[in-house]
């Protein structure tokens, strides 16, 4: 049996943006902030509410890099692969994360705790290589430092659990 979703939150987001078709991207960004991805039934719901076909919404959702149709982790790790970061060895950071969490770019850990994405540029080139975890920026990284940060986060979760 499929659980029935409560759409009150989506309704609130839609209302905030005045049910305007041209606000679709912002609506999807807000929905994603809420659910950490774009669930199928929510997309359909928005389609009906804004009178846009779900196919068109999928078109938008798959076009922009920010959107995900798969669930994201509680901690979303963004590793910058901009020019400066790439030259400073961002690939090795991906390797370190893979070792520590066993996920690659575009994947999420089984417990939905961590997800990893590689992004074009975070605009903090002076600190290259850089990664961002839930809006916190970590700069001048090495694979060792990355592992340490992830271990600390894991520990914090264990304590809270």
């Amino acid at each position: 049996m499929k659980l029935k979703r409560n759409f009150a939150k989506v309704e609130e987001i839609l209302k905030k943006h005045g049910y305007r078709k041209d606000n679709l991207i912002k609506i999807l960004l807000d929905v994603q902030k809420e659910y950490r991805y774009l669930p199928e039934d929510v997309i359909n719901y928005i389609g009906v509410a804004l009178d846009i076909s779900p196919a068109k919404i999928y078109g938008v959702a798959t076009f922009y890099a920010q959107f995900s149709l798969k669930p994201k982790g509680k901690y979303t790790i963004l590793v910058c692969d901009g020019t400066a970061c790439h030259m400073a060895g961002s690939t090795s950071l991906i390797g370190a994360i893979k070792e520590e969490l066993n996920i690659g770019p575009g994947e999420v850990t089984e417990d939905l705790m961590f997800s990893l994405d590689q992004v074009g540029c975070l605009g903090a080139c002076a600190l290259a290589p850089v990664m961002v975890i839930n809006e916190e920026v970590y700069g001048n990284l090495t694979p060792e430092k990355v592992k340490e940060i992830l271990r600390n986060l894991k520990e914090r979760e264990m304590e809270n659990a």
Partner: protein
Amino acid sequence: MLRTIDEAIQYIEEKKIERKKKLEDLNVYVCVGTGCAAKGSLKVYEALKKIFKENNVNVNLQKLDDNEERVRKTGCCGRCSSGPWVIVMPYGYFYSEVKPEDVKEIYEETILKGKPVERLLFTDPATGERVERLEDAKFYKAQSFYIMEDIGKCECDSIDDYMGRGGYLSFIKVLKEGNPDWVVKTIKDSGLRGRGGAGFPTGVKWEITKNSKGDRKFVVCNGDEGDPGAFMNRTLLERDPHAVLEGMLIAAYTIGAQKGYAYIRAEYPVAVEMFRKAIEDAKRLGLVGENILGTGFSFDIEIKEGAGAFVCGEETALLASIEGKRGVPRPRPPYPAQVGLWGYPTLINNVETYANVPKIIRDGAENYRKRGVPNSPGTKMFSVTGPVRLTGIIEVEFGTTLRQIVYDICGGLTDDNEFKAVQIGGPSGACLSEAFLDLPLDYDSLKSAGAMVGSGGIVVLSKKACMVEVARFFLDFTKRESCGKCIPCREGLMQSYRILERFTQGKGTYEDLENLEFLAGLIKTASACGLGQTAPNPILSTLRLFRDEYIAHIEGICPSGMCTAFKKYVINPELCKGCGLCARSCPQSAISGERGKPYVIDQEKCAKCGICVEKCKFKAIEIR
């Protein structure tokens, strides 16, 4: 709420006096730009606030009653690599890499006694000496601040501070004159060219939009800075949002628009927040909204966040995105100036272009032209990254050479690096070799060198960088970001990427080299929009200036040693003590041996991750 032009002018005059007093008085400015914030400047800010709050400061025997207020947020100081920055006025002491623990000493020495904290003073990499004030550093002197004037001494989140710097006077002047033709003429005479990269004359764009017929018109600010290695727009929106807003207001009045949109990347949350606050503050004072200053002119502005698509920097794609659709460009003409948002005439300019406008109105076209070179007047912000001593945001006049930027401003390359090339203009820019170090940077001379100003990202590359890998890296980016609408770009970039990938894996051939050149030319001529037309630039420029590296790859050598496929990890038996640490840490189980005897790496299994090199305490593992 300011109701008339005279009321506004009077308000600004008051703010000017207040600001002058503020700079002569004791005030601490903390840089909160993304670079400094990432290095913990907000914690420094809080620590300073706390110490001010807890103590009664007596300066010149005068007790301060507004202690906390004296710690202020300032926008990016440009030298992100040495942040967090703290500037103490009225002395002008310029502290770099400040930590929360340093706050106590700053308070005791500088705030109470007016003395500098020597160890925190910025060390000028050019001379190796500590400098007390920002103005004394060579990198500062070598620049030409115009858009970023008042660097380190402006509050990014205060409309009153902006007005204290004479802000909004240009907009008021334009309202007072009531003559859009005069504005167009001034912008045309100034020679301002679009800072988005292509360098189209701004005045001409304004004139066309002004003369276009439409029931409604729109003004759009392009803040979708998707280029890897470029962050000027972000910096500008964070440090001086009102300058951009004022430019948009002047534009709206001139072309007759009632509504504006600022399209900003969602990846820049601080910039979005800062600009949102700027709009709110301007609304509160009556500079945005209905019947502005009683002139009958109404203008409203909305922020539209992007969602991560490089192609949305392309103006027609950006407009589609504002309408809530996929950001797919369409052929031009008709230009947005004729048929834009929802079919109405739309003026679209870059963040930096708008920031120039109030200054041009303030100084007059003739004075503006005193900076830069005849065909590219004014200044340009660049973001510089790579292995140079100082990285961050710089502002120079057009016509400044790469050598001045790399060596005078950025202090040359860091110790263990040697200059090889600069990559300028983002992923669709070009790599320029040492021979171009004395090339003056402006729209036309860069174009003639096969490069472009682009968004203004400069990445310095050292001898350790492999130019084939650099080209592959950029193609990887552009092929991913191609919207896929037209075939030359969608398929051509994919095929070019595959060829480049073969090169970096040591499988390139001479035939590939020919195909690569052919494809690059084809994509350039046959693509529909700017993304495809410029995407082959990294290939063409590296093929022209670093062809020998491509050939070396075919012959089985990566000269810089960057491409992993060419690397071989070998244990030197003379240095190996046989501790076995490497074997235990190898994720591929590629290392074997007997304790006490030299270990060996199985080349078939080795994934070339380099973990063993990190682990080995005897430096026995060599990369060949």
